[in-house]
């Protein structure tokens, strides 16, 4: 039917084709695409390549989106690496680095899920219809390439984080050695609680040594205040607070010890994990090393055998014995022929 109308029929067909593509694009749904094609298209055979092409183009589009996102993430990562390297003792962009780290982590996990989706979509395509082998290999290659790029990005990210922790540790050491700036780790619960207890009733069993006389609790404060000019009044206030803060301090102390122990224990667990992994990897590699050894021994045996063969060959070639025998036989043959013809 196409050949009869010549060129014009092709053009007509093209418009029809575009119309079908439009309808397809409007009504596209991965699961329902196949049954929808049949009433619209001219023939079932032509629908497959078309929807395949649409699916393939969607796959390509998503793959390109993912590739772009990976590229952007790696750019941000290089910026983060620069920041981490650059940080000096005084000009520490901790907050920026933290934000950037969080953003990159989010992006990487998002890319991971997107890549998994892409792979699932591709697998579902492969199962649904007959796609040529080239398309399958192409999509597989694309997915593998994206996965490799994402893995490289993640590895760089990990390196940058390690670098950052090392830098921070170096900075902390330097800061301790040279400056007196308060580090962020110390907390002083009593500084915070100082404004709370203003004038607690002293519940001490023994009157203070410099409280001269007055037994009543309210007047104990006054002579104490007036008595000692040397000590700071704050110390007295806090000493009064101490009685009430005693039990919480014990708890805090014990809690902090318990927490430190927990940390140590979890660190040890992680370490044991790492060690087991290390041992597994090394044992696997040991097996590989044994195989390499065997291969080399085989090679050695082969080469030695070949060398002996060649040596024998050389001997046989270089020896003159056979030559003499051959010449002798040729002479005898000539003699025989001579004697035959002459005699």
């Amino acid at each position: 039917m196409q050949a009869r109308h010549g060129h014009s029929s092709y053009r007509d067909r093209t418009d029809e084709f575009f119309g079908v593509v439009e309808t397809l694009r409007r009504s596209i749904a991965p699961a329902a695409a196949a049954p929808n094609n049949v009433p619209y298209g001219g023939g079932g055979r032509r629908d497959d390549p078309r929807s395949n092409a649409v699916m393939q183009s969607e796959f390509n589009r998503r793959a390109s989106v993912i590739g772009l996102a990976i590229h952007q993430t790696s750019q941000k990562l290089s910026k983060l690496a620069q920041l981490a390297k650059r940080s000096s003792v005084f000009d520490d962009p901790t907050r920026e680095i933290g934000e950037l780290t969080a953003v990159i982590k989010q992006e990487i996990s998002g890319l991971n899920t997107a890549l998994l989706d892409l792979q699932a979509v591709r697998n579902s395509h492969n199962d649904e219809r007959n796609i040529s082998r080239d398309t399958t290999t192409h999509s597989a290659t694309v997915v593998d390439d994206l996965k490799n790029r994402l893995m490289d990005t993640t590895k760089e990210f990990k390196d940058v984080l390690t670098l950052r922790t090392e830098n921070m540790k170096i900075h902390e050491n330097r800061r301790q050695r040279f400056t007196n700036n308060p580090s962020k780790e110390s907390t002083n619960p009593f500084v915070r609680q100082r404004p709370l207890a203003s004038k607690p009733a002293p519940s001490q069993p023994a009157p203070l040594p410099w409280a001269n006389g007055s037994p009543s609790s309210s007047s104990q404060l006054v002579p104490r205040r007036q008595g000692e000019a040397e000590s700071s009044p704050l110390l007295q206030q806090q000493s009064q607070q101490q009685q009430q803060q005693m039990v919480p301090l014990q708890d805090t102390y014990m809690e902090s010890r318990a927490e430190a122990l927990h940390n140590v224990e979890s660190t040890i667990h992680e370490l044991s994990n790492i060690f087991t992994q290390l041992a597994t990897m090394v044992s696997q590699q040991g097996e590989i090393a044994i195989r390499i050894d065997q291969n080399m021994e085989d090679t050695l045996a082969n080469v030695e055998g070949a060398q002996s063969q060649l040596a024998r060959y050389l001997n046989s070639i270089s020896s003159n014995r056979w030559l003499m025998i051959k010449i002798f036989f040729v002479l005898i043959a000539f003699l025989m022929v001579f004697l035959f013809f002459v005699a």
Partner: protein
Amino acid sequence: MKITALLVLKAAPEATDPVILANASDVSHFGYFQRSSVKEFVVFVGRTVASRTPPSQRQSVQHEEYKVHAYNRNGLCAVGFMDDHYPVRSAFSLLNQVIDEYQKSFGETWRSAKEDSSQPWPYLAQALTKFQDPAEADKLLKIQRELDETKIILHKTIDSVLARGEKLDSLVEKSSDLSMASQMFYKQAKKTNSCCTIL
């Protein structure tokens, strides 16, 4: 992270002043003229805090820029003057050690002390210098630090082991190619040898 002074006192529950049994202070970072007054200040604040600390209790007091930690164990009280960065836990474990050491070396003789003893106790001075780094005093801190370093080293080790694995893989391929090639070599040699002995 600095310890300024360490004191061991006998904190009597009666109305008397706590008696100083041992005293070690590091006033080198004050000016020469302030040193004696700083020592007096240390002595006085130490007495105050020790007298306010009930037995078998630990306490921390903030005084100007120092934290004073006190630990009272059955009348024997150890007081330490540290700055704000010194971790509280390490401070208390240090005071624990000091008290243990004191009890080991002096037994119970301190109970009868009535006035401030003036002999220096060398252990205290040594402890002051040794424990300027809190990791020394607190075993937990030291362990945690070492564990973290070990973890980093192990991470690096695992990376290098992975690289080693890749290299071993490439080696195994090359060696198998080599063995194939040598086998072909051997066969060829055998063929040329055994084929034509004559001619």
